[in-house]
């Protein structure tokens, strides 16, 4: 049992949980993830670390309520607990002094991009961050991102807040404007794909973080496999970060859809249970 020390809603559908996990907090590095199983009937869900505090022995997880498991997570409260929590998994982000780095966070991807931007800045990079969401209500951590960035650009798809448009537009402008050594893009797969396409003509190395469907997270099942540079790789042990220019995005999109039908069934069932409870 892992205790939830605090739980807050960052937006109506995005939850932030601080969980007691001293051993994981001691080892965690930017870019790594954990796998949670909420209760006895729960599935194993990978979540990229949004933050951690080795001294306090805590980790911070951010999740958007899109499926039955994330809705269940959103229903947990301060003082409650998560049955299983394992990590830190995956390889940490490469943190070096590259020069100017652009960090792009889309939607709930803003959370995992934050510690990476912070580490990159600490390593002496000039960090330009772009965060975007569909609308104002889905945007969070603007203040936290501003603190770890030399420059911050905020976009919303519908223009309900800050600049109207997609994150790829300011990304392209920056690439045209100045020499960028590296781009880190985390968010929906479609966003990561288009960020990679945007940086390709500029030949700027682009790192994406692929949150594949997983079971064990230790390389045991191959459920998280994808194709990078023509080779099969496991997101949980070879990633989660990969070269965005080498990723076969069609396979990423296809594999995300494996359980669409079942996920909907589970979500409907969860909602029904909630209605009966209230």
């Amino acid at each position, binding site marked *: 049992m892992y205790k939830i020390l605090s739980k807050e809603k960052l937006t109506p559908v995005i939850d932030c949980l601080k969980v007691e996990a001293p*051993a*994981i907090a001691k*080892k965690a590095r930017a870019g790594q993830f954990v796998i949670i*199983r909420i209760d006895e*009937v*729960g*599935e*194993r869900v990978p979540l990229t670390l949004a933050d951690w505090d080795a001294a306090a022995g805590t980790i911070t997880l951010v999740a958007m309520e899109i499926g*039955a*498991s994330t809705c269940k997570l959103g229903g947990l409260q301060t003082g409650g607990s998560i*049955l*299983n*929590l*394992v*990590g*830190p*998994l995956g390889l940490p982000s490469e943190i070096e002094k590259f020069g100017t780095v652009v960090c792009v966070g889309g939607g709930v991807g803003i959370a995992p991009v934050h510690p990476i931007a912070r580490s990159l800045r600490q390593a002496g990079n000039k960090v330009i961050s772009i965060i975007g969401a569909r609308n104002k209500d889905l945007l969070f951590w603007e203040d936290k991102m501003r603190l770890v960035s030399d420059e911050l650009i905020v976009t919303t798809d519908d223009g309900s807040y800050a600049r109207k448009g997609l994150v790829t537009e300011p990304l392209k402008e920056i690439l045209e404007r100045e020499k960028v050594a590296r781009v880190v893009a985390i968010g929906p797969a479609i966003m990561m794909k288009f960020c990679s396409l945007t940086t390709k003509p500029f030949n700027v190395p682009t790192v994406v973080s692929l949150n594949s469907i997983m*079971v*064990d*997270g*230790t*390389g*045991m*099942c*191959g*459920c998280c*496999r*994808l*194709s990078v540079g023509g080779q*099969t790789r496991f997101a949980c*042990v070879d990633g989660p970060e990969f070269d965005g220019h080498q990723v076969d995005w*069609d*396979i990423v999109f*296809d*594999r995300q*859809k*494996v*359980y669409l039908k*079942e*996920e909907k*069934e*589970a979500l409907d*069932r969860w909602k029904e249970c909630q209605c009966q409870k209230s």
Partner: protein
Amino acid sequence: MEEKPKAKINLNRVAMPHQDPKARAKNYSEVALGYTDAMALEEASRCIQCPKRPCVGGCPVNVDIPEFIKAVRDNDMVEAVRVLKSKNALPAVCGRVCPQETQCEQVCTLAKKQAPIAIGRLERYVADWDLGHQDKRSPTVLPPPTGKKVAVIGSGPAGLTCAADLAKFGHKVTVYEALHTAGGVLMYGIPEFRLPKKIVQSEVDYVKSLGVDVQLDSVMGKLATVDELLESGYDAVFLGTGAGLPMFLDIPGENLNGVYSANEYLTRTNLMKAYLFPEYDTPIKIGKRVAVIGGGNVAMDSARCALRLGADVVYIVYRRSRTEMPARHEEVENAEEEGIVFKMLTNPKQILGDDKGWVKAMECYEMELGEPDASGRRRPIVKQGSEFTMDVDVVVIALGTTPNPLIASTTKGLDTTKRGTVVADEQSGKTVKDRVWAGGDVVTGAATVISAMGAGKRAAASIDAFLKGQ
């Protein structure tokens, strides 16, 4: 002296009662029901108690088989349990899953007459009696604590056995397990209908009752390295991490939706209970026409799970012939009875997908057998121009596994082979690294429960000798 009339040798092996094939193909209850008292007595009485005792040598951990069988015949169950458990820590498991036909039963004197004693079934009978009569168990008396600490990584049969023995020697043991449940393959791989999880759990509980601390959710190499464990106060470390890395075929179409490694298919089904979806949250794609590639226990288990999940047709696709299949004979028979279709001498060429990225068919070659290869089995060769297509919507690849490199890649001074196995002394399990032992599948590559258990036992003895000599 008057000569005793020679007892007539009974060659009628008592059959194992089974659930009806039609019914069981739709449920997850155990297939083999176990001997009744009368059946056990009858089978035990067939043993001629021959002085040569070849069965003992055929058993990887040298259980005193004639003695426990004699105790069954004498209706002294407490004694039968004592004899069995003095060598085998997991008899309820081994009685169910050991390949007896290539071990003890193969060399039984009555095997020459095609009627070896059903040693595995008797072992299961004794072990199940023990589970049902825990009150008759004499409590394990632990020696005074030695003050030594050992970390065991992995909670499969190798790790559990090693931990139990070390605890009985008086050492303080912590088992670290990556998954959320202890038991290794016994929990996540072998299905409920062949090895009820209740039985594995009671073995885990027994190990805990000896004072062993089991830490779940602990991926070692990530959470802490072996060196960090040794620096943080453990006097020795045992690696029992198994061979959990799935092999793929490396053919076109392998990343299509609907293609699973057997590990994923079985883990979803058994560990995550996808067969109870949506009551349990983990889904699995229910195929109508499922092809399982491989001929071992893992392939049989996957095929029989597919059937129980609701498939109309399940194929075992194997590139050699029936006689070369490495699976336990009993499971091959069970699978066949349940209606699994065996496509022998068949090897996949590619998996074909529809326009949405889902499996729709598999193209295969017909094979023929050539000269024996290094394994002594006849090498399968492709018949040129023999390609044909099978309509399938789920493909499960059960080709075998290799050890996970996580520990080896994060531990300085550990020796590994090209196949990724950890090098350790066969007898003691000692690796070339100071204070580190290893055993089970991580050393041998995918093998058997009994060999993993034996390795765990031998390593515990060696670790104990080392700690006491310190």
